[in-house]
């Protein structure tokens, strides 16, 4: 009986370790490949090589990755702060002051979660063509244009409303007695109380923005404005790809999201599952 249990345990650990090894393997390959020459990457070299500094030089000399990291940082950070502020306004409004009219609006907004982005792509592109006409700073081929459609999203509004359900509304009454205005109640009472929710929403938004590919691909034209995924994609489909250098570019541009994940794991997971509460 004891032997059987032990066997079971060994089998379970073997299963887990093999599985985890398979999930981790592409990361191992990525890390090793940044030290290898282009040809060794496609040959599947699994041992570290000596090409790291050459690859580093190639990445910085021949690609726009530094510029792209700058662009992506502007887009991701800007989008994150603006989106969580604007979307939380609605989440708060819908939850704290519910009315029949607002419920209808809310349901319609939730419906927009079902709309696939591919269905919006062409009309959005045309819309931004029009915006370019009178406000070029927000139009086609601008970083603001990349962010604009994501300032208010159904997902974030839903997320904030779900979490606002746990917000103690007595605090609002207390704030009113203290003479705070309705806006003051939001910025001085709701926002500080919901810090965790903001952190979680912010992380998810940042990750999505940093990794967003299709919309920037549609709206950005000048390579100077390219964000990270566009540059990586262009490197991958170039005629003479340097695989070691591409892997290094991928590794460098994955570091921000990896750091956020490891440092703020708790909030990140809360941000993911907060939507199904």
């Amino acid at each position, binding site marked *: 009986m004891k032997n059987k249990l032990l066997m079971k345990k060994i089998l*379970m650990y073997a*299963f*887990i370790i093999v*599985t985890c090894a398979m*999930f*981790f393997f*592409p990361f191992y*390959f*990525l890390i090793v490949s940044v030290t290898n020459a282009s040809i060794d*990457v*496609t*040959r599947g070299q*699994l041992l570290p090589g000596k090409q790291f500094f050459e690859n580093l030089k190639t990445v910085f000399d021949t690609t726009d990755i530094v510029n792209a990291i700058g662009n992506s940082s502007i887009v991701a950070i800007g989008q994150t702060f603006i989106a969580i502020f*604007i979307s939380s*306004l*609605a989440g708060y*409004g819908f939850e*704290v*002051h519910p*009315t029949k009219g607002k419920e209808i*609006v809310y349901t319609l907004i939730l419906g*927009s979660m*079902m*709309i*696939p*982005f*591919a*269905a*919006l*792509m*062409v*009309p*959005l592109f*045309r819309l931004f063509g029009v915006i370019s006409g009178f406000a070029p700073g927000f139009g086609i081929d601008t970083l603001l244009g990349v962010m604009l459609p994501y300032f*208010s999203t*159904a997902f974030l*509004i839903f997320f904030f409303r779900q979490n606002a359900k746990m917000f103690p509304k007595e605090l609002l009454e207390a704030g009113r007695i203290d003479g705070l205005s*309705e*806006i003051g109640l939001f910025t001085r009472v709701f926002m500080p109380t919901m810090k965790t929710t903001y952190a979680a929403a912010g992380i998810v938004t940042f990750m999505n923005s*940093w*990794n967003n*590919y*299709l919309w920037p691909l549609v709206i950005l034209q000048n390579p100077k404005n390219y964000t990270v*995924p566009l540059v990586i*994609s262009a490197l*991958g*489909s170039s005629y003479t790809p340097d*695989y070691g250098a*591409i*892997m290094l570019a*991928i590794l460098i*541009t*994955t570091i921000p*999201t*990896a750091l956020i*994940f490891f440092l703020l794991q708790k909030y990140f*997971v809360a941000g*993911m*599952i907060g939507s*199904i509460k």
Partner: protein
Amino acid sequence: MTEQPTVKKKKAGKLERKRKVMSWAFVIIPTFFIVVFYFYPMIQSLWLSLHSGAGIGLEFVGIDNYKRLFNDQAFITAVKNTFIFFIFQIPIMIFLALVFSVVLNNKSLKFKGLFRTLVFLPSITSLVAYSLIFKYLFANGGIVNQVLMFLNVINDPILWLGDPFWAKVLIVIAITWRWTGYNMIFYLSALQNVDPSIYEASTIDGASVIQQFFKITIPMLRPVILFTSITSTIGTLQLFDEPMNLTSGGPGNATTTISQYIYNLSFEYTPNFGYAAAVSYSIVFFVIILTVIQFRLGREKK
């Protein structure tokens, strides 16, 4: 929360009204953004789909674009590919995610956190980045073929990127790697709410681990499974980044998805926004149909 008593309401009638106006003020700006960037494009898309051409030279063609869909081989192939990914990838991924979540929920397991992190880690990579990593892993002389040949599973390298069948398999493998851990997190969190005494009782009754998995875990997690399968469906129907960067939709059109076809129609070929809009409405149609079906299936056996 109960409503405030009416007396107080009358007293503070003016204040109340002001509050009501303010409460709309909170939702008006976010709603405006949603209307401009989601609802307006949806309506515009419908209008476009009844026209032909791009830019200024749009011409009204009625439902011709929709009729054309049924005879368009490239469109039919894209729909077929998308559905192949949908039918094979989602069940495999959900099943694996369920198994991992149950195994990694085991209380006596050591290094639980590390194992969970390792399975989840793919979810932090960008879709473009991991697509390229997989492209090199599965290159002809790449490491995957080498390992398979070393293990004598195959004699000749598999043309992962060059064979219509294997290219589809590769996409399924890649997406499964990227999203299994992501879905697992939802199941793990739902498992925290399952009362352990149910398992204990069934163990005493002589139920095996596999029986418990199918008879207890899956029914208990039904709502979360429904949620993840709907989000995965919407994701798969919009699949774009992976086929674009991993296989470029090839070989031929073997891995071209509907989203990619819309992109090509709008920005790669001679632009035909009207027809692209009609194709995009097909995705909306599929999303609605499949979501309704899943809701029905997910709720049926209660």
